[in-house]
């Protein structure tokens, strides 16, 4: 019998981003995602949008992402206490990827943290925003003020020609180096810009006040290199780039070791072992995790998608696919999966059970497509 979650509150209708009217004019197909209505694709289609991002530059509306500022002299120390990263060592003007962990070593969320002065600007997953806010509010000391910026949109400009396109309207932004952050005025609006993204390409994320979002997006779309791209292409791009998606490839019961994210654990943190879940994570580092996130190339043209069961050559249970698609750049079916540690080495063959039939799949190194971040 299915378990029904009873609630007194009716489900909230999905929220519109400030670019809803623009998406409609562009012919987007809108879908509900993490409580928001977002474009899954425009008329060009997911594969064309994916390829255009790798060849030139695409504009994505990622306004569903949570934008949170922690301000006050104790902000860095307070966030450091909740994450695996060296947040106190993050210099002003720099950005870092980090993880909020729980006492069991599970990942509460993965997020970007950018430092400007003493303030930390966080970009968190849409579906985790409420959970993160509750967690942060419950842990922050009184001298750290938390602001949830529900009045700001987030635009991602991604691709090898993103910098030259952005340089025409925001020369200062195009001067940023990878994983740097700056605030600037563009077309009369106060923007916070980072050079980073979720595609494996060079690119930028622009935090924009709601009332300027459509104007800035239109300026970017006016650039000859830039076309709009939706959530569908964002997903296939991040998959090729080997970047995990929270709720699929990582969650509260996966640890940074299992997820292949031990590189996010700061050097000092590995000396002090003072982050939430450090005992469990240290044990996995010393003795090995039972399962590991891997990349798979699946034979044939039928994608192995999330939930697809994986079986070892000897017929034993091997693991589960957490996300998978047809990869336009690789022109092959790729997947991320958790596999038993003894099966996780590159080159190992396992079988994806697709509609009851075993289809060969091979473990390959991540990313599937090399990152092309600027140096």
């Amino acid at each position, binding site marked *: 019998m299915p378990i029904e979650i009873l609630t007194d509150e009716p489900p909230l209708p999905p929220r519109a981003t400030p670019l809803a009217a623009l998406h409609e004019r562009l012919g987007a*197909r809108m879908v509900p995602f993490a409580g928001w209505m977002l474009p*899954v*694709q425009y008329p060009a*289609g*997911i*594969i*064309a949008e994916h390829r255009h991002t790798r060849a030139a530059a695409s504009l994505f509306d990622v306004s569903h992402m949570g934008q949170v500022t922690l301000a006050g002299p104790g902000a860095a120390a307070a966030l450091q206490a909740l994450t695996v990263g060296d947040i106190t060592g993050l210099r002003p003007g720099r950005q870092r990827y980090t993880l909020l962990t729980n006492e069991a070593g599970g990942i509460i969320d993965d997020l970007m943290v950018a430092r400007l002065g003493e303030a930390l600007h966080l970009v968190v997953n849409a579906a985790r925003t409420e959970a993160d806010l509750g967690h942060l509010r419950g842990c922050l000391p009184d001298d750290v003020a938390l602001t949830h910026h529900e009045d700001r949109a987030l635009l991602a400009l991604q691709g090898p020609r993103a910098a030259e396109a952005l340089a025409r309207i925001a020369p200062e932004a195009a001067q940023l180096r990878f994983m740097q952050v700056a605030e600037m005025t563009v077309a009369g609006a106060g923007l916070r810009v980072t050079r980073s993204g979720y595609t494996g390409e060079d690119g930028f994320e622009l935090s924009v006040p709601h009332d300027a979002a459509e104007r800035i997006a239109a300026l970017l779309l006016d650039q000859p290199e830039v076309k709009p791209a939706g959530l*569908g292409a964002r997903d*296939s791009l991040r998959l090729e780039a080997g970047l995990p998606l929270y709720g699929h490839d990582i969650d509260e019961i996966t640890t940074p070791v299992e997820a292949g994210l031990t590189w996010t654990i700061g050097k000092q943190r590995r000396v002090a072992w003072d982050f939430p879940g450090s005992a469990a994570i240290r044990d996995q580092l010393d003795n090995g995790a039972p399962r590991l996130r891997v990349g798979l190339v699946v034979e*044939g*043209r*039928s*994608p192995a*998608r999330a939930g697809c069961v994986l079986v070892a050559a000897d017929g034993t249970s091997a693991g589960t696919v957490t996300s998978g*698609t*047809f990869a*336009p750049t690789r022109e092959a079916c790729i997947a991320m999966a958790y596999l038993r540690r003894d099966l996780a080495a590159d080159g190992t063959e396992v079988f994806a059970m697709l*509609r009851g039939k075993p289809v060969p799949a091979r473990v390959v190194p991540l990313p599937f497509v090399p990152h092309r971040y600027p140096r």
Partner: protein
Amino acid sequence: MPETRFTTDHEWVRLDGATATVGITDHAQGQLGDIVFVELPQPGREVAAGEACAVVESVKAASDVFAPLAGRVTEMNAALADDPALANRAAEGEGWFFRMTVADPAAFETLLDATAYAKLTEEA
């Protein structure tokens, strides 16, 4: 030109004598997005009306395709194996999925006509 009829599951059927050609509608391909793989029923397979007998995979999702009428599959569209996107470009023509000999040609009349199908997709 034989008449084309439709199912509520977004297949189209064109009947010529007792032979039906089956595919997915242009509306369906538009909803699915880029099609990357099509699995078709083998010739000789007996199918019941409404039986899942083909699978279409788009970048976004996998969807079943149902036999619109009972009968025996006689031919599958080999062109889709090499070029699944044909089902996007020419959904209701060259991108057909399979042909079948229908057990009861009169059952064709129970399917939606073009007007009824257009109404269905407008409401969706």
